[in-house]
């Protein structure tokens, strides 16, 4: 079993190293090492919290992050190593957010998911508003379609690959690439108007 703590990127892909480290930690956890679970949570909790917040569930971030990890570890036997552990977590979290929105809607408190995502898009750029350039970027991002914005921010802020974005958002790798480049083009145009 590889030593996850001492692995360092040596090749051309840092992603591959990250996936290998996660795989080693998962193997350790499966063999009874509960410390490996702590390492996995430490590695992904913050990115997961950021992702959940951007889905519009700002008030439920802690709860959703915890629920996501519980579900993930409860279903690790079904985890396929052909995708990264972080992507898998994001996918679970996104489904949880959608399920909660639907439940809220059934209870009579409708929440427009698109609006929620857009609102979080504003929130995440609040720090830029202080500057004129920041304000224009904020406006540009807010003007994107929901999917363009989701892909753009996942690529730039979460560092997900097109493949991971496709898996997380339930689209294709090619579509994710198109959405990203369209988003970049739209933001540039907005900035130079």
């Amino acid at each position, binding site marked *: 079993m590889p030593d996850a703590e001492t692995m360092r*990127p040596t*090749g*051309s*892909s*840092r*992603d591959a190293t990250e996936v290998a480290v996660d795989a080693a930690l998962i193997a350790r*956890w*499966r*063999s*009874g*090492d*509960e410390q490996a*679970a*702590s390492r996995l*949570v*430490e590695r992904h*909790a*913050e990115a*997961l*919290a*950021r992702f959940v*917040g*951007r889905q519009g569930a700002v008030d439920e*971030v*802690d709860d959703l*992050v*915890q629920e996501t*990890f*519980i579900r993930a*570890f*409860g279903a690790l*036997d079904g985890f396929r190593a052909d995708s990264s552990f972080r992507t898998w977590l994001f996918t679970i979290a996104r489904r949880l957010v959608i399920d909660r929105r639907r439940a809220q809607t059934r209870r009579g408190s409708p929440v427009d998911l698109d609006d929620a995502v857009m609102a*979080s898009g504003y*929130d*995440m*750029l609040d*720090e*830029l508003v202080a500057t004129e*350039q*920041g304000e224009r*970027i904020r406006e540009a*991002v807010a003007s994107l379609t929901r999917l363009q914005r989701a892909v*753009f*921010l996942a*690529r*730039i*802020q*979460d*560092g997900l*690959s*097109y493949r991971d974005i496709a898996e997380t958002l339930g689209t294709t790798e090619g579509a994710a*690439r198109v959405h*990203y*480049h369209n988003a*970049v*083009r739209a*933001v*540039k145009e907005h*900035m*130079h108007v």
Partner: protein
Amino acid sequence: MSECSEGTWRDRLPDLVTGRLSDSDAVEVDAHVAGCRSCADELQLLRIVHAARPQVAPPAVAAIVARLPKPAIVGAEVPRPTASPEVVPISQAFSRRRPGGERWVWRLAASAVLMVGAAGAFLLTGPGTDPSTAGEPVVAVESIAGAPADPTVGVSLSYGGAWDLSEAEMQEVLASLERWDGAPSTDIETTPLVLASGGDRE
């Protein structure tokens, strides 16, 4: 602003911003950006957006870990789940419900039914009543083999005695009765026994 004609460089800019490139790849992309105005502008934009990542409070790792399920250690015996109903093949369902130690009771009961039926038929018809069929014992067991679709059909026996069966035939009859064991246990007592030449009898 014209875009870089080489899309592969633009595709790698986000990876450079988020630190996902290896050192050698990062140097390679940096070298391209140094000579490409379009990519340099795009990289600056991406860095601004990346720097504006929402700040989140550090998650309480210990609290999360405390609620995680325990690992099912590889090689250890995994306890059967108790929440969901156990699924067993229908062919095993009844034998699981009735311990094997009770099976001899049903065999004995089935044999007794067979013997009583055969004796009844013998008494009612008697040997040689019909010369054309005398000495040709026939035991119709077609409705025994499976659970009877029509419960009134029951077990149909023509005249003849069980003692007339060969060992192989008797084994076949007993095997059929054994398969009949899949019927609900309560049906055994209430299934009518229809004699070919007599009235109903339980």
